[in-house]
Structures are given as C-alpha cells and as structure tokens.
C-alpha cells in the first residue's frame, strides 16, 4: 500500500526533518504514528498524500513509484486517500453536509446517490441535527468530526489522520477510533498520527515513532 525507502525530506535549505525513513504499510493494516510535536509526523503524511516530493529516497503508493508517476495521475491517486487534517480545513461557506459530500462530488457521484450515505455518516458522528450548519457556527470538536466524516465518506483505500481526536472528548474520541477500526475491518488501511497514549494503548495496532526525523518501530500490529 505504502512503501518508504531511505526517504529524506528538507524544506528549502533547512535541516532534514525526515532522515532515512524506511517502512511499509501493508494493505489493511492499522498503524499509529507517534512522536513529539515537530518530530516530522505531518511532513511524513504530506509525502504520502503527494503534497510534497521527498528530497531523497523512494516513495511507493498503491504500487506506483511516485518519482516516475505523471502529475496528471496524482488526482486519481489522491482520491483513494482520505485525509483528516490537524486544522480540519473545512470550507467555511459550505454546510456540514456539503463539506462531507465534497469527496463524493470530486469522485463524480450524483447527489441522489450519496445523500443517504452522508446523512447517515453525519448522524453516526453525532451531527445529525447540524447538517445545515456552517463550520463557523460549530465547536472545534464538531468541526473535527465533520473533517473525519469527510475523510471517510468515500471509503478510501488509505486513511491518514493527523491528530484526529485532539479536539474531542474521550467518549467521542473512542467513538471516532471505533469508526476508523470499522473502516479498517472493511479493508481500509489506516495511519493515524497522534500523541494520545490512551488512544494507542487501547488498540491492538502497530506503532511507529518518529524521533528527530528518524523512524523507530515500537510495536507491530497485534493479532
């Protein structure tokens, strides 16, 4: 699904924020990416989502070597990835419903095909009564749940999330993790960047830790 081989990354002439990162995410795996703030977690997620090219090394995604993949093919690859951003990145002028429906529209789905899916998903994340609300009128936790619903609504092959439970209470956090686990059970490969130890301890998932830009394998996925 995802393969990094000796990947290094630096922004401009700055220091390397990722160094010799090598790992494989098998299809159907569930992985936590941990590390202190500034350890390079967000940069690693950006490399997976093709928003930045690596400074060196090889990144392979869905069996495609990204260094030789044409840029015109990136959108189709990106549509196979669901992303939960740390800062949510919701479109303020769209309702909760429209924000969640966006990936389905980008995939060319017709409105009558996805209305029920989107409404069910919003209800599942506890926002069934806020579908018409604009993000600015919602709390941070509610915005985060919309961001998560948007990332998973198209049932992506790969889900990457950057601190997805940072703004929600423990109960909602557990509920969202159960959603990720359910998606994983259905075949989605999940990679979650977090520093929430409680979240990790409760899961039988693999953990990779970034320390000063280097990757340390802490725990493999338990059966």
């Amino acid at each position, binding site marked *: 699904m995802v393969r990094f081989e000796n990947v290094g990354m630096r922004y401009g002439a700055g220091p390397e924020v990722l160094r010799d990162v090598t790992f494989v995410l098998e299809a159907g795996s569930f992985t936590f990416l941990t590390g202190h703030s500034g350890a390079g977690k967000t940069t690693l997620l950006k490399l997976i*989502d093709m*928003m930045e090219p690596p400074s060196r090394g090889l990144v392979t995604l869905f069996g495609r070597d990204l260094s030789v993949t044409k840029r015109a093919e990136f959108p189709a*690859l990106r549509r196979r990835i669901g992303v939960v951003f740390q800062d949510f990145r919701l479109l*303020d*002028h769209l309702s909760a419903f429209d924000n969640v429906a*966006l990936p389905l*529209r980008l995939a060319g789905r017709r409105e009558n095909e996805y209305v029920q899916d989107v409404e069910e998903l919003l209800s599942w994340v506890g926002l069934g009564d806020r579908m018409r609300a604009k993000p600015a009128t919602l709390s941070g936790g509610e915005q985060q749940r919309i961001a998560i619903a948007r990332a998973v609504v198209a049932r992506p092959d790969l889900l990457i999330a950057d601190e997805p439970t940072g703004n929600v209470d423990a109960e909602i956090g557990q509920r969202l993790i159960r959603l990720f686990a359910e998606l994983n059970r259905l075949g989605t490969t999940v990679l979650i960047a977090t520093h929430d130890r409680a979240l990790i301890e409760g899961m039988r998932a693999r953990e990779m830790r970034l320390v000063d830009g280097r990757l340390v394998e802490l725990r493999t996925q338990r059966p």
Partner: protein
Amino acid sequence: MSLRGGANSILPREKGAAPLDVVIAVMAFLAALALGASLIAERTAVGWRAGLSDRLTVQIVPPAQSAGLDRETEAALVVLRATPGIAHAAALSQDQTLSLVQPWIGSDALVAELPLPRLIDATITPGAQIDLLALTHELKRVAPDSLLDDHARWISRLKGLAEAITWSAYGILLLIAIATASAVAFATRAGLEAHHEMVELLHQMGAQSNFIARAFERHYFASTLGAAFVGAALAALFFLGAGGLEFAGIEAVPFLPPLGLKLAEIPWLLAVPAVSGIIALATARLSVMAALRQIY
C-alpha cells in the same frame, strides 16, 4: 441542503467582487452604446442612400442678370423632361430653397435678399440608365450656369462615413473586449490568491484542475453576465429615451440623425452580455489553468 448548481457553488461569493461588477457594467454600457451607434449609422446610411440614389439635382447659379436665372431654369427643365429615364423634374420654389438653408444661415430678412441658386429636383425612373456626361453637355448648352449633381460624391462620402462609424464601433468593441478579458483575468488571479487554501484543499482531495477551473469560470461567467446585462439594459434605456425625444419632436443633436434605436433593434444589445459572459468564461478558464500549472 446540498450543493446544487455544480462546481460553481464550491466558490464563495467574494466580498470584494462589487468593483469588478461595476467595471463590467460600465464597459458593457459603453459597448452597447458603440453597438447601437453602429446600428444607427448603418440604418441612417441606408436611408440616405435610398433617398438620393434615384435623384438628380440641377443647380442654376444666379447669373449677372436676374432675368437669365428664370430663362436658364426653364430651359434646363425642358431638357430634363425630354431626357429618357427622367420621370419627373420640377424647380424648387423660393420658399422651399430658403427652408433648405434655414438651419445653417437662419431666416431673417437679409437672407431673403441673398442671391440663392435655383434648384431643380429630378426623379429617375427606377432602373433607368442616363448618360450623365451627355446630359451635362446639353444642360450647359441651354443653361450655361447650370451644375448637374447626381449625388454620387455625397453618397460615396455618406457610405464612407457610415463605414467609418461602424468600424470605429467595432474597434471600440474590440478594446472593450480586451479590457473585459484583462479585468476578469486580474480578478481570477486575485480570486485564486484569495482562495488559495481552498484550491490547495481541493487538489489535496483529488480534484482535477478542470474541476477547479470550472468552478472559477462559471463563477465569473455568472457575475459578468449579470453585470453586463445591467450595463446593456442601461444603454437600451438610453436609446429608448433618445427615441422618445425623437417621437416628441425634440432634436437631441442638431444636424445628426436621431440617436434612438427601433424596438426591433434593441435585442441586438443582448449580444453584449452574451459575448461578455463568453469572454469572462474563456478568460477565467485560461487564467486558472495557467495558474494551476504553475502552482501544482
């Protein structure tokens, strides 16, 4: 609840879009004025040409002896009436001649004493061919002070004037089209800059550049169409108002034809918002695609 209206609704209505709408409306107003002027010029030239192309005018310049004027006029009338192809010939009365010069030199008592030429108006049978050179010689023989005018020079100048007005209008329309495209290109770039994060998000979610370009082109097409329609509507009101003045017998601009458009000509002004919208659509698309190629 959901997005209805396709990719354009992805883009929020920009808070600072009003100045662009005003610029587009003003340019559309000017474009519609230019288009209307060309329509009036063309219609007027056709009317003038139709009015003069089957007419001849003979002018008898007053000779030294006033008795000669009447004699030469009579002789010229005889020649004209005897010429095959001339259906009718009649001398204008003194009052008719004075009314012709009245707009230029007035009508006071002194004017009546001016040695005005005698004018003979002749109508040519439709389709008849007249040997103008022979007719001129014959007229000169019986009336040495006569001048034959077939209006060819005047018609030619009218044609030239109408063409000049029409081509000037086309030139103005072209300049306005360029200005519209430039304004929309500038606004599109500014819009891309303002919505940079949204565009980046859409890209990150797998949107094709086409999808984003479509959102921008529809957005600017709709806003330009609306603003240009307002401009064209104002121009239509102007022309209808000028037509109303004409109907009321008020001459808006002395010596020039009325500036009013006929009702049947007003729909032509709809071409202005239509073309403006197409220009905006094409410009926005090209601008966005070029910008996205540079950014992503």
